[in-house]
């Protein structure tokens, strides 16, 4: 394997009086599934937001494919998130008024792909996550598990390098969570996309190749130490 795809070093971030991160190191290699574990409030979501370029850290460096994420402008980071990253959140990420198909096609359309082409590809992805029949339905009319599968399809439709998943099964029961995790990791592995998986559940983390633990805003990555 080559060097890491995404590296964050000595990340610090403070929200008001709360120190969410105080020295976190993490690296993500291409195609690996990395679980970020830790108790609630430990700063694991903040770490994900930093790595994904949603939030800029107060100090520390983030490198993606040799590019400095911290130095990028907001617009550049937005564009990067659109083209290179995919996202799955716990719930409520689908646009309620768009159909499932349109939701999945959205990242492609924002990238300038024609509607027909985008929707054809979106349809393939819906079938791949086994909800091909839901294309015309609105997110409000599908179950939580189905909605998360649609979200997985949307995260992967743009062929991202990294998928950031923040408690993707947090709102689901065991069986649905299991299925979503299997679909997510299988699809990501076959697309050679890395997955950064924030979870506090060991069974979910068991789908990963490797884990790091965030505690009180600090995290050590053995890959970086060695």
């Amino acid at each position, binding site marked *: 394997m080559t060097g890491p795809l995404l590296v964050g070093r000595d990340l610090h971030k403070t929200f008001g009086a709360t120190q969410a991160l105080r020295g976190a190191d993490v690296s993500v290699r291409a195609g690996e599934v990395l*679980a970020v*574990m830790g*108790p609630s409030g430990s700063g694991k979501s903040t770490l994900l937001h930093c790595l994904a370029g949603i939030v800029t850290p107060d100090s520390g460096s983030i490198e993606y494919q040799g590019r400095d994420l911290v130095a990028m402008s907001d617009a550049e980071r937005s564009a990067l998130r659109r083209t290179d990253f995919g996202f799955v959140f716990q719930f409520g990420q689908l646009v309620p008024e768009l159909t499932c198909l349109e939701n999945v096609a959205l990242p492609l359309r924002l990238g300038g792909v024609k509607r027909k082409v985008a929707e054809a590809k979106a349809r393939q992805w819906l079938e791949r996550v086994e909800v091909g029949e839901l294309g015309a339905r609105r997110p409000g009319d599908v179950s939580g598990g189905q909605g998360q599968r649609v979200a997985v399809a949307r995260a992967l439709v743009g062929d991202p390098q990294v998928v950031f998943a923040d408690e993707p099964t947090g709102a689901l029961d065991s069986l649905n969570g299991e299925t979503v995790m*299997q679909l997510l990791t299988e699809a990501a592995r076959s697309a050679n996309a890395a997955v950064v998986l924030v979870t*506090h*559940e*060991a*069974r979910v*983390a*068991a*789908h*990963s*190749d490797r*884990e790091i*633990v965030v*505690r009180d805003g600090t995290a050590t990555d053995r890959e970086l130490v060695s």
Partner: protein
Amino acid sequence: MSVSRTLLALLEPGPRHGYDLKRAYDEQFAQGRQLAYGQVYSTLSRLLRNGLVEEAGVEHGAGPDRKRYTITDAGVTDVETWLGTAENPEPYLQNTLYTKVVLALLSGRSATEVLDTQRSAHLKVMRELTRRKTGGDLADQLICDHALFHLEADLRWLELTAARLDALAEVVRP
């Protein structure tokens, strides 16, 4: 779980008599099943034989003469290795894990590291089970799930303990 290593670790902060050792053990870990004097002395003589402890003089008092024992360098290394090694993930580990956490706290070591080491070992097994499950039939899946849920319970307990380490430290370190 290992009584001999527990006694050895209890000696680490400083020399004690056998009677003190028994009291310390009963206080922290007995949970209704007190240690017999016989077991304490037989364990101590085994430790003496293996060079992990040594006698540190005799105390003359009102009662019978009491020998004081102290831990040797080899003993400290043994405790350190033991605490640093993950228990083989299997059901009903709690007793050992709990002992390890408390001893780490008592000896001023990082209990968090004990937990992290254990988590990592658990996850390794869980990953293996998950992989097996993904490839297997329904029966495999159900069996693997059984094991996975048990291991997860262990880990949850670990997380809970980790979250309460500060409170625990106050209790075990008077």
